[in-house]
């Protein structure tokens, strides 16, 4: 198996008629993902590369049985689009959009926790289950099917780690980008829980970065609930305090959210932490080979 997306995924893409939306929806479709619909208000009846476009998420669900939504609209419209997808009963929403206002994210997060819709992102590269489905912007050609589950706050860093693993002969069950924003819809814990329950996954790689305390919370969770080996990486050891390092959520505030504190918290719970992406892959190889 894999987590979150697979051969049963029926994807609807909001923002499909935009330049980026068209490009990536087409890419996902070409990979073999079952892209069943697009949503752009006022453009119902059109199609994008053979994918039918609907005015609303509700129509796309009724007409095509869509069960996963990808949101690709500009930041000022993104919260509304996520809420619309949830309202249409779609159980999993993946939001790629970067730059959504924090208060919007907070309202969306709180509402979705109550309705049970799962959100992955925003500001994330999406999810790839190699050999099954690709939803988002992860360059799938670097990854093959295998037994390593990856969960990460960063896109390119994930490709770097995944590529090093691939060179060592290992593939992935799923790669889940949870995004670099202050209020991610899914946490490390949410995804690690899925990997722990997934047959295909034998090792979990957690790729974190400075800011917040999601890695520390994950360390506690792993110690109590995870039987599979976990290898971690934390980016930002040399980041100066008070500066946002690219991702809105990547900031050391005073003495809080440092990479050193996160690495320590994980190591204290028995998680091995690689100091470079290469070391992470080496640790994974060492554990899987033993």
């Amino acid at each position, binding site marked *: 198996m894999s987590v979150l997306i697979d051969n049963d995924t029926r994807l609807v893409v909001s923002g499909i008629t935009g330049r980026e939306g068209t490009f990536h929806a087409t890419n996902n479709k070409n990979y073999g993902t079952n892209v069943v619909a697009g949503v752009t208000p006022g453009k119902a009846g059109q199609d994008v590369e053979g994918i039918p476009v609907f005015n609303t998420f509700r129509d796309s669900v009724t007409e095509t049985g869509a069960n996963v939504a990808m949101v690709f609209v500009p930041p000022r419209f993104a919260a509304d689009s996520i809420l619309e997808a949830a309202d249409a009963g779609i159980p999993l929403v993946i939001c790629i959009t970067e730059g959504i206002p924090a208060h919007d994210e907070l309202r969306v997060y*709180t*509402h979705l926790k109550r309705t049970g819709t799962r959100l992955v992102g925003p500001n994330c590269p999406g999810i790839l289950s190699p050999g099954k489905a690709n939803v988002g912007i992860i360059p799938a050609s670097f990854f093959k099917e295998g037994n390593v589950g990856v969960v990460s706050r960063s896109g*390119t860093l994930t490709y770097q780690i995944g590529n090093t693993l691939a060179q060592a002969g290992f593939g992935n069950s799923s790669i889940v980008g949870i995004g670099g924003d202050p*209020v991610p819809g899914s946490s490390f814990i949410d995804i690690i829980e899925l990997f722990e329950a997934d047959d295909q996954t034998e090792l979990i790689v957690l790729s974190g970065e400075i800011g*917040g305390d999601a890695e520390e919370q994950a360390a506690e969770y792993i110690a109590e609930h995870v039987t599979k080996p976990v290898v971690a990486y934390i980016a930002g050891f040399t*980041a*100066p305090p008070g500066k946002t390092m690219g991702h809105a959520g990547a900031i050391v505030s005073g003495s809080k959210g440092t990479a050193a504190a996160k690495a320590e918290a994980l190591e204290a719970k028995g998680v091995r932490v690689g100091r*470079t*992406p290469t070391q992470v892959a080496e640790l994974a190889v060492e554990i899987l080979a033993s």
Partner: protein
Amino acid sequence: MDLLEYQGKQLFARHGIPVPDGRPARTVDEAVAAAKEVGFPCAVKAQVKIGGRGKAGGIKIAQNEEEAREHAGAILGMDIKGFTVHEVWIEGASQIESEYYASIVFDRGAKAPLIMLSTQGGMDIEEVAESNPDAIATLHVDPLLGFQDFHGRRLAFEAGVDADLVRPVGAFLAQLYATFIAEEAMLVEVNPLIVTPERTVAALDAKVTLDGNALFRHPVNAELRDPSDEDPQEQMAKERGLTFVKLDGDIGILGNGAGLVMSTLDVVDLYGGKPANFLDAGGGSKAEAITSAVEVILSNESVKSVLFNIFGGITRCDEVANGLIEAFRQLGVGGMGIPFVVRLDGTNDVEGRQILADADLPNVYTAATMDEAAQKVVELAKGATV
């Protein structure tokens, strides 16, 4: 985006939060005129985005016009922890009976706004949190329910606010919460929140951080962005649409994706180098973006060598290679004698490496892995020839 004290107070005033009457001033004459308007005694307060102004001599009380002139003259242009004072805020001196503390922070861990209230105001709240944590009452507000009157009462009683002030403090917190939500703030902090002899409360200071991603909904706040606050190099990068943070080392760094760039800084550091900057050229970087990125990196005279660490996803390595060649042509990089180490992996990496090999740029080295690239760029920064 951080606001100056007076900008925060003006924002508070728009939401009905009581603040002392004041005027901003950029020159000594403006300050004196403002002082006459608000009346004496008045406070002359340095406007800088850093704490500890009082201790640094940036806040003075003026009893008359002469003193206002003297203090404004001393404070304007003063350096406070590396921040030059360009503006002062002239404010009618307040009668203070006691000093409380109130704040609301966007608590990303708890995913809810966190309100804090204490009767131990006027000092560093982190010190209070350390020495006397019970003195701070805290409460998370459900973002979908919003602030309720009982929240105010609960906080006030728990903080030990005087009985006659429970109602005004609760009302103050309600207004502060409304401001936090309406303006999409990440932080609003009032320290001190003063109690006057008439038993009213007012915000004597204001520290406000707004969400930069929400400024499109707040044109008045967006106007407050002051480019002169920013490092000139960071400003130059922003104008070119690049994400850039200046650091104090001598190795220029360019990568794609925030996580990979942070990781690159760490790996360079691990091999004994000191990065001069964080620069994320972004997803799908085109050749022009790479050319401007090189221009920004080399505008820092400390830079002795430059590392390109690219893992192409949406970004194509051939675009990156062409951008570098274009930078050498447009900016005359070849003549500067600054070596470049380039690591290209991912989308179109073979093409990118071939383009670089064919161009045969002076002082441009390639590396197969991130580790090798970092080692090489560190050696080059130390003056080694590779």
